[in-house]
């Protein structure tokens, strides 16, 4: 059996003010149908106030195997964290 529909990734905003969060994917003919399906599949218990549907093929993703070259140099930069710097005892907050 061949599939004529496309894969969409679904993102839901659970409430105003929060980012859309990836919840899963589904097949649909077009974006409008993807939204309708997402409503039925992912928001049956008022999980969200807004849905984003994005074609899976439009998502550019880094791979875990890229980790080395992507993230490795960050481990020796502890000075990017506030906790790296000592404060005098008298200073309670900074």
């Amino acid at each position: 059996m061949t599939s004529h529909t496309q894969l969409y990734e679904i993102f839901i905003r659970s409430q105003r003010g929060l980012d859309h969060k990836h919840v899963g994917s589904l097949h649909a003919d077009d974006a409008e149908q993807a939204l309708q399906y997402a409503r039925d599949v992912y928001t049956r218990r008022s999980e969200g106030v807004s849905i984003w549907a994005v074609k899976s093929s439009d998502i550019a993703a880094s791979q875990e195997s890229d980790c080395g070259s992507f993230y490795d140099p960050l481990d020796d930069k502890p000075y990017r964290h506030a906790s790296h710097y000592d404060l005098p005892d008298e200073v309670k907050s900074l």
Partner: protein
Amino acid sequence: MDQAEEEKVFQERVDAEEKIEPKDWMPDKYRKTLIRQISQHAHSEVIGMQPEGNWLTRAPTLHRKAVLLAKVQDEGGHGLYLYSAAETMGVSREEMIDDLHEERAKYASIFNYPTLTWSDIGAIGWLVDSAAIVNQISLQRTSYGPYARAMVRICKEESFHQRQGYNIMMTLMRGSDEQKAMAQDSVDRFWWPVLMMFGPHDSDSVHSAQNMKWKIKRQSNDDLRQKFIDQTVEQANAIGITLPDPDLKWNEERGHYDFGEIDWEEFRRSMSGGGPCSRLRLAHHRQVHEEGEWVREAMRVYENKKRSNQEAA
């Protein structure tokens, strides 16, 4: 729904502490105000890279250089978060940059001051970033969702900025007499311009009432300035820095520090392009933008080529 009804729903949403999201109906003035505010905030982050970048090649140790580089890199990232938040309101990045170059958009006047000595880098990290954080913590609760979320991300990253600045000042204040004098001189020059960062007094602030009603602003200029002063005095005392204001005194009754009057004439001059480095900052931004044109051109050509190859295939 007609306009009046839309506006009512909008205000009720704001009153209920619900965020406004990009596709919601919003008053034109709300959109305009936010585009102006967010883009000017973005310009400030990017222009702010110049005074600090000035010391990258002259940082006193390799470690200080790496730290400063990391900080300046963060500021560029913060500019990006903010430009993106503004773009959700339908303005393009090019329009915003154009507004900056044509001087229709402003940026924080503090970056129009020069960084003359290494300790200026300490003073900026400690005082300028602390003041920015006081303002930005308040803006985490602003009513426009994408702006509020950008503020959360930025505040998280800023905490190391003020600490590294304070660390520079603390180290200098534990050093030789010359080092102590250099640190004190930086604070003497930066203290008053930093207080101006919070904007005019509430009584002179034109947009305040409407912006508070729409919850674009959550705390007034004077309240935020007071908060910054109260928390900074202790930090200055701990390392032996004197804040250059003879009127700075604890007021038991108010539970706050009293302080002297700001030179608002200087503030207006600096905001309207008359600061010591105003022309330099803009000229440099324009120059770098023009010098980068060949990169944008190359990207356009490559995009077109890729598209015609795809069409041919």
